[in-house]
């Protein structure tokens, strides 16, 4: 479970996050939506321990990211909006590096790397250096490295950007599989129709403030998520 409790983050005098609170339960696929600069990436980076925040707390399975960051990070995998990797490394070395940080044993990582490399059609490309890859291929490497350590919580920032349609389809399948195992998927997106179909819960953020949060059914009612989002944006 992820508990975001009254989180405030300031950049100088500007509040990037203003007293944000909500909870993500086990087994949720949670969509986090908002306009550009609303504070989505700031909150995601705060959850995964990249950013510090000024007030409030974030609990991962009851553990505070502020007090015990390493223990919290062991439970999570983070996929950034831009596929940030060590580009001079071979893809297989990068994935091994990430698995080493999560102390994944040889058998488990071998099984997972093979599984996800096959799904993303990267099996015979893992021996190349990442700087030779396209944006989409880099994104696939980031996804493989995130999934290879079998995280309980998957946090993603705009995961579908730059991916080909088959990869998007495959991710959706993987996310559904994770939910069946009672894991958490939390991601930010601008592709509202995908979020509407895929996610069980949603939160909408505007200018750093949480304006709506709840189950997808509660939030959208009979309307489309796009329609609800546009109405909230115009208020």
């Amino acid at each position, binding site marked *: 479970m992820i508990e975001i409790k009254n989180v405030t983050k300031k950049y100088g005098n500007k509040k990037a996050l203003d007293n944000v609170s909500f909870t993500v339960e086990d087994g949720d696929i949670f969509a986090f939506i908002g306009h550009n600069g609303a504070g989505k990436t700031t909150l995601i980076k705060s959850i995964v321990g990249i950013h510090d925040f000024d007030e409030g707390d974030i609990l991962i399975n009851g553990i505070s990211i502020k007090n015990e960051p390493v223990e919290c990070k062991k439970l999570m995998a983070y996929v950034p909006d*831009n596929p940030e990797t060590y580009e001079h490394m071979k893809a*297989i070395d990068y994935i091994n590096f990430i698995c080493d940080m999560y102390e994944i044993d040889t058998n488990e990582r071998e099984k997972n790397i093979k599984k996800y490399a096959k799904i993303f059609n990267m099996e015979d490309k893992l021996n190349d250096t990442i700087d030779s890859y396209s944006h989409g291929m880099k994104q696939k490497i980031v996804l493989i490295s995130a999934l290879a350590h079998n995280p309980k919580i998957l946090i993603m920032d705009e995961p579908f950007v730059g991916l080909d349609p088959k990869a998007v389809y495959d991710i959706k399948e993987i996310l559904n599989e994770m939910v069946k195992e009672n894991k958490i998927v939390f991601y930010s997106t601008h592709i509202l129709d995908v979020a509407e179909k895929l996610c069980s819960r949603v939160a909408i953020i505007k200018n750093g403030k949480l304006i709506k949060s709840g189950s997808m059914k509660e939030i959208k009612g009979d309307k489309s998520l796009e329609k609800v989002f546009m109405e909230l944006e115009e208020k």
Partner: protein
Amino acid sequence: MKKTYSLIKACMTSDMNLFKLKTKNKKSSKLVPLFIALYLMFMIWGSANSMFEKLAPTHMQYILLSLFAFSISILTIMEGIYKAGPLIFNCKDDDLLLSLPIKRKTILFIRILKFYIFELLYNSLFLLPIMIAYIRWAENITWTYFLTSIIMLLFLPIIPIILSCILGAITSSLTSRFKYKNAAQIILSMILLVGILLISFNSENIMNYLIKHANGINDLIIKIYYPAGIYAKLITNFNIKELLLFIIINIVILTLSIYILSKFYFKINSRLKKITTSKKTKINNLIIKQRSKTYSLIKKELNTFFKTPVFIINSGFALVLFILTAIIITYKFDSIIPILTSKEGGLGLSKELLNNNISILILVLISLTAYMTSITNSVISLEGKNINILKSLPIKIKTILMSKIYSCLIITTPVLLIGNIILFIKFKINILESLLLIVLSILIPLVSHFIGIIVNLKYPKLDAENSAEVVKQSTSSFISVMIGMILALLSIVIITKIIGKINSSIFLIIVTIIYIIINTILYLYLIKKGTIEFNKLTV
């Protein structure tokens, strides 16, 4: 013109943050580089005064200005050779700039301009204090001295940076044809650097000869290096035509070089961007194996080091020099003795003292190499946006920072050990002193590595356009190099004061204890404050 101005402004903004006091960093931390720069300028001013004093009876004070102009130009070329390639070619903003409606010559001009501004600042650090000191010692100062000096300060970097750009273009062009571009670039740059170093050593002999043979000295210097010679000529005998000619020559060289380089620039750039992929390898043939966190982090660090030519050349040059010096000492020790025993310019040691304290001189060599090899001053900045990867992983910050230190030790220790062994065999150093020197070969670089990483955490540059900006033009590298220079000078001064007054073995034991204490303090500081600074890093 408006377009060029906007482009210059956009390209320079991030770099010029170095000189802004109003940033999110505290004013005090911005003042540190300024203080160090002023301190360095004060030291140079002091040294220049004593040199002018020695030259005053010969009425040839102006020669010192020429000599410094010449030496600084050589330094700029040496630095520029391996800096020019990454500063000008294969930059992060290539795609953006090439997609805009801007002439290619303009893009090249902006890149060279950035290079010029930084060299101008570095040159000013050394030249300004000498120019100021000259005012006191000159026999006749008129407005023409100030005019000439300002023009010289502004125009002196042009020819060296153009030469560096041409050499950088040649090395980049040659290496872009190789499969292993980085390795080829490192080897070529090292050969060029050692070559220029040898030439400059000989030039120093020529200059010394010139000081002794005063007749027609200006003409002779002009023949060796026109800008340095013309400076002395204009100070002693000002001629507006010659000053204008100097300006015109520089502008013509600059314009022509930009025009010619722009013809090849994009061919080289696209070749450098060409990607080589390895043969398709089946997943079953790949190595998938668990390693410890520290092992994996060290492997990553070494990978970054060996894949960044400017980084390896910058930090590896002193190590290469150490090995070369050890070999030269082994074969030509007799010719070095006069330098060490000379009271003017040397250490002024007696032969007997020298023979009894060889191990202390090896210690001086180790100290100089260690303080000139500041690898860690860039290790945080080189992470760039990838710092977020490290921050999101379940690793203690202490493990991240220490793995960076260990990987630097893995680079420096073997080289120092090889040099040590060569010197131990040559001078038959006893076992105790050999062991102490080996321990010090780890402890002294460790101090340099700790200082480097502490400074880099305080002054990170995570948004650089290329690795050369981080390695050569960042506040962190500037401060670390300055601290290294001060520590190296301090080591020499302390050792020459103490040498002969204390048994060399006892001296080495004391030094070892002192370094253990310093390292412990630096380690504790890094773990406590470094962790806080690391947490503050954002991109």
